[in-house]
């Protein structure tokens, strides 16, 4: 953290892409930052949370991305430079306000960072390409390729935003957000933290007939930006004097794969590297393609540049071939790799590569390699909730899944996520299922997810009268993304105490009559609660309340509380296997048909003690 806040101008340091974005924002004089945690963007907010006080800026974990974006817009409209960051689905959530914001414009610079996740390495939802939003909402977009560009482009994005009075999108992908690289630092600028909302300096009233005017102005801005895109130095040409008739257009992390592939193939193809990818520098692309026979577009994830280039190529000359992900020379889905680019260039040019990934993979495929799936941690309260629920209903219920650590209940032995859509969707979908079927239905939703998008779904269930069981897994944290606080915790992004908003109070206020708060470690009590709730004619809510075990252990260690360890008394154990096969704790293992507890992994939750029919599990003295 030290380097992000205190690193001196000119110093070379190693930064994560996400950290470099924060440094860029500091160098641009950001005064306000907001987010809702979502990987691969999470470290942007977390870095702000760490430095906000010392840096003299304001940071918050908002209740969801839409609110985060609106808050950042409020700051920018009041003359304070602002940044909002989220993962790809966060942009979807915020989009309702992104569109009018593009029309309205901003006063101070406002940067919207969106992190896409090719291959879904860190986020479960989809390989969405958020670059479509730039086109859809008419917002300029920059795409950095590494940590240095993350920092530099953030600064440029702020300047463009302020100059053109328009929010600017900065789009990263996982290998950029979670890539580390050398960054030469610039100078930190102390930004404004206090502003004032001015009623008439901008077109705020997004309502007819003004809206026709703001739309016209938006297009004027885009025309200006298109001109700038032709000249800006983050759009540049490499190997200008190449005699090759195949050229490459690329952006973001894919640029690096292109350079390495050309090096490996010993080729000097002309490369047009785009940093500002919307609006496209159309003249520049035309002149780039004028003397080429074919052009390869290398980009993450969808063929968006490819489609843009294709349209220009058709204007230019019909015989120009455009290769890319759409054409099938590069994979249509999944994360791009250098190997893919090597193969594509090799195929088009006929230049043989020494690298043979297919032979390499053939050898690999012969090996039998068992999977290692992510698991809920030892002592995770969600495991206890799932165990109790399954012991009551077995497979005889529909389980609505949602977004959080509990998504890992998708795997055996639990399989408690029959569907997963998006934040809060467990409730909406379960309501629909309940309306048309007589099946038992249980929605699992986390605490932070409930605040984020679960409240409207709950109200809808009450108002439109269906009777699912909704289990709110309240582990007192936004755990999956790195334990960020939420309104139920009572700590803000600035690290200050705030009002604790009780989930059970909200549930009651939404009109739910059957509300229970249960500690999931009390398995018996949880089982009784589930059994009782499933008999009700109206919607029931169980708040399964128990602090995330990782946080509990951290806290207990700090407080000097001894964490008990458990072991299995082999003289009492009859090898029924419930603790391993049905409870699935990673601290329990089997060796030579006997069951044991790994003391290094055991976190002392003692739930296994409660579920063991032979009372064979005991605390180690």
């Amino acid at each position, binding site marked *: 953290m030290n380097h992000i806040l205190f690193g001196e101008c000119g110093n070379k*340091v*190693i930064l994560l892409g996400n950290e470099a974005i924060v440094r860029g924002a500091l160098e641009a004089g950001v005064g306000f930052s907001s987010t809702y945690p979502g*990987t*691969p963007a*999470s*470290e942007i907010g977390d870095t702000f949370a760490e430095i906000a006080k010392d840096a003299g800026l304001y940071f918050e974990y908002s209740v969801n991305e839409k609110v985060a974006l609106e808050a950042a817009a409020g700051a920018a409209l009041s003359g304070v430079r602002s940044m909002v960051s989220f993962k790809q689905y966060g942009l979807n959530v915020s989009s309702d306000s992104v569109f009018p914001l593009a029309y309205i414009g901003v006063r101070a610079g406002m940067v919207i960072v969106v992190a896409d996740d090719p291959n*879904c*390495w*860190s*986020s*479960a939802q989809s390989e969405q390409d958020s670059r479509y939003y730039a086109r859809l909402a008419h917002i300029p977009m920059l795409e950095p390729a*590494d940590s240095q560009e993350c920092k530099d482009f953030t600064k440029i994005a702020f300047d463009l935003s302020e100059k053109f009075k328009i929010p600017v999108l900065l789009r990263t992908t*996982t*290998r950029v957000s*979670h*890539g*580390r*690289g*050398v960054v030469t630092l610039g100078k930190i600028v102390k930004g404004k933290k206090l502003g004032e909302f001015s009623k008439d300096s901008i077109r705020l009233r997004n309502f007819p007939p003004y809206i026709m005017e703001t739309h016209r102005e938006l297009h004027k801005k885009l025309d200006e930006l298109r001109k700038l895109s032709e000249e800006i130095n983050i759009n540049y040409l490499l190997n200008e004097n190449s005699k090759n008739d195949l050229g490459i257009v690329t952006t973001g*992390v894919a*640029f*690096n*794969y292109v*350079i*390495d592939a050309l090096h*490996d193939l010993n080729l000097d193809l002309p490369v047009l590297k785009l940093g500002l990818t919307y609006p496209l520098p159309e003249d520049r692309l035309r002149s780039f393609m004028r003397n080429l026979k074919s052009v390869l577009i290398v980009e993450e994830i969808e063929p968006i540049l490819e489609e843009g280039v294709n349209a220009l190529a058709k204007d230019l000359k019909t015989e120009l071939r455009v290769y890319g992900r759409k054409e099938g020379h590069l994979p249509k889905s999944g994360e791009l*790799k*250098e*190997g893919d680019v*090597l193969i594509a260039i090799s195929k088009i040019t006929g230049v043989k590569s020494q*690298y043979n*990934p297919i032979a*390499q*993979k053939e*050898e*690999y495929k012969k*090996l039998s*390699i*068992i*999977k*290692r*799936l*992510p*698991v*809920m*941690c030892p002592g995770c309260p969600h495991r206890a909730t799932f165990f109790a629920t399954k012991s009551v209903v077995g497979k005889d219920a529909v389980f609505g899944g949602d977004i959080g*650590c509990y998504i*890992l209940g998708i*795997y*055996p*032995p639990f399989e408690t996520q029959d569907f997963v859509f998006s934040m809060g969707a467990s409730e909406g979908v379960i309501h629909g299922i309940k309306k048309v079927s007589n099946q038992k239905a249980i929605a699992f939703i986390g605490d932070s997810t409930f605040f984020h998008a679960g409240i409207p779904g709950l109200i809808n269930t009450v108002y439109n009268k269906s009777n699912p069981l909704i289990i709110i897994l309240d582990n007192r944290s936004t755990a*999956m*993304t790195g334990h960020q606080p939420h309104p139920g915790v009572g700590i803000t992004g600035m690290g200050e105490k705030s009002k604790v908003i009780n989930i059970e109070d909200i549930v009651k206020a939404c009109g739910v009559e059957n509300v229970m708060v249960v500690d999931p470690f009390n398995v018996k009590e949880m089982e009784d609660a589930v059994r009782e709730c499933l008999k009700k004619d109206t919607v029931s809510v169980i708040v399964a309340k128990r602090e995330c075990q990782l946080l509990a252990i951290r806290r207990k260690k700090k407080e000097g509380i001894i964490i008990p360890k458990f072991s299995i008394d082999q003289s009492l154990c009859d090898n029924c296997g419930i603790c*391993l*096969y049905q409870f*699935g704790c*990673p601290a329990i*293992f*089997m060796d030579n048909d006997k069951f044991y507890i790994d003391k*290094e992994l055991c976190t002392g939750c003692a739930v296994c003690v409660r579920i063991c029919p032979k009372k064979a599990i005991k605390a180690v003295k």
Partner: protein
Amino acid sequence: MMEFNVIITGIGGQGVLTLTNIITWSALKEGFDVKASELHGLAQRGGAIACHVRFGDEIYSPLVLEGKADLVFALEPLEALRSCYFGSKNKTIFLVNTHRLIPLSIFINKEGYPSLSYIADALKSFSNKVILIDASEMAKKVTGDTIMANIYMLGYACAKNLIPLKRESILYGIEEAVSQKYLGLNRKAFDLGFEAI
């Protein structure tokens, strides 16, 4: 043009990210360009992860191409096997911690964990040198915790010239990447690996 490619593989919680971070700072200290790729979030949680570090005169891609790894640090044997395609016979060294962490799914799906000899044999088709050490056990002896196995292995790799980074540069890297509180323990684990025979 000099370039050195490292894969660090293991399980979320074993210190894969810390090792990645230390190597990047050590390489910077020696004046190299450096890039790395980490995995966070869903990729962790007890799941398998592989991080990439590349350093040299001029580095573009943060990812190591299949077959182009110079050194694979495997903090767990099954994970060495999973990442073996980054290796090739003509250049790659595998440094493997033999301490097994058995995935839960093995019991639930009634699968078998491969034997160490199966793993070592498989690695030999992707490597000219496979080094097996029980780093967890060694680290535990001195630090009381298997968690220091990653740093022990780094010390070992440094002393045996498996990675072109000087001892002082790595110690600097540790200082940059590890919190003050654990610095002493990390240095101890590094020295232990460095002095191993």
